[in-house]
């Protein structure tokens, strides 16, 4: 199949203005999330850092730039994307280089989301081409901005269905000096989440709270003295039976949670369920305790399920939503919305993309 390629915003706008047939927007092509067989449009040619001011914690970058490149640029100044974007290549068996635009399109956020916020919370501004071929900007490069409607949040997590991102700007944060993780092995999901809840309810700034491989994990990051103090204070509160991992050992644990490494290369359908944190273990129980990784204090449930399992029926009493990240199944990929909300979403799509060009059918 042909792949449309663009290397600048104006060329992209012209292509879309005259385009009548649907397009599948591709950054690095590592996140799955494909509906239908529309012709792919690669935006991986829109690359480069437009502006980076470490002293203002601000990064502006073109959407096709590789995530690895963004991380390299930030790392050189001792900074990072605080929302900890995941790499799904292992989980999905995809290859290629994840792009920063793909991270924004999927609002891809890792374990630190529970403490500091998601991709959408660090996204300061966007430029995108809408379905009429107009270049639109919203937000900007400053941290506090309430000028006009916040389409930045709307674009984050819209999976390319509202427009094609060309440039994104972020608030970035300093990398902490060190980190430590408290680990309690051999606990059930319910026991694990109970302990995570205790940790998240303390003033010790827990920046990761997960249950994986039967172990509860609580992460502390910061300056060395502060990490030691908080790790010890938290350990005293949690009681006996907890081990600690430090530095690189701690970081490796969280990479596995972030990327859902336990499911890589395994057969089955992968579901991503988002609920109130304390409902995480209840959802697992309602589904007969499938293999699972719980993040965000229990609120983000990664499930490895057989084909055809009715995850959404089990989820119904708890609210929240389920998205199928990998595998075939008759159920829709995204959670069907209540009628009035679905109507608003459909009308927004019709306004942003009147010709129905962008990833049609993906989110509906």
């Amino acid at each position: 199949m042909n792949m449309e390629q663009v290397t600048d915003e104006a060329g992209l706008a012209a292509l879309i203005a005259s385009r009548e047939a649907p397009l599948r927007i591709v950054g690095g092509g590592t996140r799955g999330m494909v509906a239908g067989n529309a012709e792919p449009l690669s935006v991986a040619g829109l690359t480069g850092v437009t502006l980076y001011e470490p002293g203002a914690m601000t990064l502006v970058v073109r959407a096709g730039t590789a995530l690895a490149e963004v991380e390299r640029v930030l790392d050189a100044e001792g900074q990072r994307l605080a929302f900890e974007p995941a790499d799904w290549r292992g989980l999905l068996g995809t290859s290629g280089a994840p792009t920063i635009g793909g991270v924004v399109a999927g609002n891809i956020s890792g374990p630190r989301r529970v403490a500091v916020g998601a991709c959408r919370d660090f996204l300061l501004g966007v430029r995108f081409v809408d379905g009429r071929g107009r270049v639109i900007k919203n937000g900007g490069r400053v941290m506090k901005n309430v000028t006009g409607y916040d389409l930045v949040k709307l674009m984050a997590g819209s999976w390319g269905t509202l427009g094609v991102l060309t440039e994104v700007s972020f608030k970035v944060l300093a990398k902490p000096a060190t980190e430590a993780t408290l680990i309690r092995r051999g606990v059930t999901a319910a026991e694990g989440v109970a302990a995570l809840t205790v940790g998240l309810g303390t003033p010790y700034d827990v920046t990761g709270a997960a249950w994986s491989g039967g172990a509860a994990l609580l992460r502390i990051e910061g300056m060395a003295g502060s990490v030691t103090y908080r790790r010890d204070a938290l350990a005293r509160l949690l009681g006996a039976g907890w081990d600690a991992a430090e530095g690189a050992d701690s970081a490796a644990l969280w990479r596995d949670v972030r990327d859902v490494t336990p499911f890589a290369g395994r057969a089955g359908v992968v579901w991503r369920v988002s609920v109130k944190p304390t409902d995480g273990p209840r959802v697992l129980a309602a589904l007969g305790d499938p293999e699972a990784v719980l993040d965000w204090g229990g609120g983000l449930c990664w499930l490895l399920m057989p084909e055809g399992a009715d995850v959404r029926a089990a989820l119904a009493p708890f609210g929240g939503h389920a998205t199928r990240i990998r595998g075939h199944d008759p159920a829709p990929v995204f959670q069907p919305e209540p009628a009035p909300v679905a109507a608003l979403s459909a009308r927004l799509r019709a306004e942003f993309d009147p010709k129905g060009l962008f990833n049609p059918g993906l989110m509906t």
Partner: protein
Amino acid sequence: MQMPEPNPAILARKAEIVAALRAVLPGDAVIDAVSETRAYECDALAAYRCAPLAVVLPSSTEEVAAALRVCHAMGVPVVPRGSGTSLAGGAMPSADAVVLGVARMAEVLEVDYANRLIRVQAGRTNLSVTGAVESDGFFYAPDPSSQLACAIAGNVAMNSGGAHCLKYGVTTNNLLGVRMVLMDGTIVDLGGGHLDAGGLDLLGVVCGSEGQLGVVTEATLRILPKPEGARPVLMGFDRSEVAGECVSAIIKAGILPVAIEFMDRPCIRATEAFAKAGYPDCEALLIVEVEGSETEIAEQLAVIMAIARAHNPVELREAADEGQAKRIWLGRKSAFGAMGQINDYMCLDGTIPVSQLSYVLKRIGEMSRAVGLDVGNVFHAGDGNMHPLILYNANTPGDLERCEALGADILKLCVEVGGCLTGEHGVGIEKRDLMGVQFAPDDLDIQMAVKDVFDPAWLLNPAKVFPLASSAARRAA
């Protein structure tokens, strides 16, 4: 400042409209006497006033829906109102509009410490959200300076910030869900106790939409465990660019203070005369506050003090105890009151990239001298959200107009250097006609298309946010 002419057909039907509202709401929830509607003629942008057609004060989401259905059916504009503390005219009525106030809806509906959330009715005040959970060691982070009075409804509408958002973010980063009534009376729930959207992030676009997309009646808010302690340091510098460099150096060192506040000489002098906080008489003053346990505070302050010393401060003072901490904050917290003692003032709210701080301060000084109106600067330096205070005399003919013109020029400067018109107050009517400075016509058109989706007849708070000329066709349709 212009408002559209009120629709004479609506004014003529006042009795009929009021009767229809009375038919669906309790008797005391509908106000139409001219002597009483005047209490709703303005918000905190008090230079502009207009009494509404009527006021409704519903007590439940269902009553809000009933009132909106009536107004929708009769084509009557509705202006939602929280506590009326908007500095941008967000709650200012028009003569043909019904004000819908949510002040009677102030209950706490649910407190869930295990999931670190609270669900409240939207009329509840910001500070009383923290009040409901602080005895258990939690707090609600966004802290606009009007927090004693302002309602969560208004905070959501304006995406309010505060002094501590450098670390904790603004309203949108602490809002998990809303129950909202659309103009046609449809009730929708967006978000909830979970941490992300399952489809399009409609909650994200509702927050900060200035009451133009729906009436928020309930909000689910993130609450956080209170830090163990906090301590400020005060630094004085003889040049504002050095203060700006010091802010950058602190951030680059990897410290994220909970607040970095800046005051310039006119502001320092005014607050010293008023509050006698013992501030040094210098060109620029920073208050930097860090949080944590005693160990953590000491560790962070050691780094911050070393950076400050390297910038040759004329004064460097660490609070040794609670009393000294209070004195350091005293001047900053009295700054607006102190400036108000000197004269009337207009408070701007533009944000700039932190790197442009000294250039913008220099330009504001030049512009202020050229116009002959004094400007004091007090603001959140860590995030670049400036609050220039322009002093003027409301009794001097022409002074308000000169002040507004200077304000507009300062905001244009903020946009020019890469910033924006408003960091936390909102656009309202105040900055509506400057939107074209920051946005191209297409940028505004797609925002207005979002309003078309939620409120096709443009009845909710219609003459706000967008330049009147840009929205005219939609409002008339």
